[in-house]
């Protein structure tokens, strides 16, 4: 289930990704990178010997200061899972990884619209779930409706 952390960092350094921190947390083996090196890291991990062929999931979270995006990788041949984390500034750009993992296409659109990021390098960077003019709903600064608002509908 858990990949070898040193093997992961080995692959990453070989691919020229510097200052990647690989650690074992409650989530599993988590690798923290700079947003700029995510593409290179993912490509190396997919083609490397650990064989992370599947991007199982992609999500973003508002940490209060910036947006943290998580790539959840899985290798079916070795039965291992790895989480890649990077941070993006609030008004930052989310670089699409769709030509490495096609399964990122829609989750990226969703994350970009719900967390208010701009999506670059995506073949179809439209909104996916909401209509124009809806604010980034998953941000912590966007409140949900209060009881009064619902009552006086």
């Amino acid at each position, binding site marked *: 289930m858990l990949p070898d952390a040193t093997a992961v960092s080995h692959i990453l350094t070989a691919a020229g990704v510097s200052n990647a921190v690989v650690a074992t947390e409650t989530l599993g083996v988590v690798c923290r990178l700079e947003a700029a090196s995510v593409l290179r890291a993912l490509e190396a991990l997919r083609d490397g010997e650990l064989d992370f062929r599947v991007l199982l*999931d992609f999500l973003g979270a508002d940490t209060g200061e910036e947006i943290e995006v998580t790539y959840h990788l899985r290798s079916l041949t070795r039965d291992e899972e790895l989480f890649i984390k990077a941070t993006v500034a609030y008004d930052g750009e989310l670089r699409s990884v769709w030509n490495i993992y096609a399964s990122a296409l829609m989750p990226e659109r969703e994350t970009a619209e719900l967390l208010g990021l701009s999506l670059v390098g995506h073949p179809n960077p439209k909104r996916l779930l909401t209509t*124009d003019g809806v604010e980034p709903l998953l941000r912590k600064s966007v409140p*949900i409706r209060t009881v009064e608002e619902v009552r006086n509908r």
Partner: protein
Amino acid sequence: MSDPRDDVISVGALAAEGTHSAGDPPAGIRRVPSGVDGLTTEHLIINMGPQHPSTHGVLRLLIEVDGEEVLAAETSLGYLHRGIEKLAESRKYHQLGTLMDRGDYVSGMHGEQAAALATEKLLEVTVPDKARYIRTLVAELTRLASHLVWYGTFGLDTGAMGQFLYAVRDREVLLDILEEISGQRMMFNYIRPGGVVADLPVGIEKKILDFLTDFDVHLEEHHALLGGNEIFQMRVKGIGTISREMALAFALSGANLRATGVGFDVRRDRPYDAYPDLDFDVPVGSTGDAWDRYMVRMEEMRQSVRMVRQCIEGMPEGDFTAKVPKVIRPAEGEVYASVESSRGETGVHLVSDGSPEPYRYHYRGPSLFACQVLEEILPGHLLADVVMMIGSLDIMLGEADR
């Protein structure tokens, strides 16, 4: 030979989608004034959904056709986006099941199970043996109920009506059983962190076994009625083939993945609850077409029946829930837990900051990934096969849009 469509200039923008700004046609869709064979034909863009009897809810597809052949397709989601992830951030941990039920609304127990497993990972409680077995029992019953919906609607998509009624007949009995166990027909909220909310009612074992005795016969009848029909076979064989590489690239899971020959099943490979104690097979297909997906799901139902029997036989004595505080305040941390729902791997990614509400709650719905692959497999097929492929992928929009 170069594609003659490449050097044709676009003659107009596609009608605006919803309130999206007009102007850009959807990716991959081009309007061309003349057809491939030089005749003055225009490629037609057909809008399918969100109100369409065969889109299984509110899926919207934009399909570019040349005559009867599909050239390109774009899926448009969001007609059921109701903020499960956002609302979960204002709910207590034992209320998460309520939202998860309404995500994948046909197999509610699996969603609850995923949420409960994630919470338990944070809390580090041990679930009593009996609770593990009850959870597995209800999860497999729900899988039967959910696959029956798929079976019924898949038949409707191919133009059959009778087998839908037979499927609903069996489902009614199943829902009665689930109602007796949990109190509701569809939105159970039965599986909670630490166990289940109530013990099994007295005498339910006999009802379930009676149902299974009937269902053994009915299942073969169902299979003979739809799968044994030559017209149906001709319509689904070779349709919507997904290669192994494509399935991995698009992160398919569940029966859609197994039909391509990749035998990954969360129940076997990441065992949870009582699955390590049970004896079951994981069916896999070979070619990954609609027929394989049909066969894999039918076999899954037979395996579910087996598992329900084993659960009832091996049901241990003891408590149905562990001691869990009324207001759960798990330690800070981040976990991922997944279950094999009827549609694939339903995962919950939970971030806790130590307060009684989750900090971030992410729900991985397998249908979202199945919706993506549609854009890839539709081109090249006939328009009449589009509904077949949607039906065979078993898409549930509640969990794709969340």
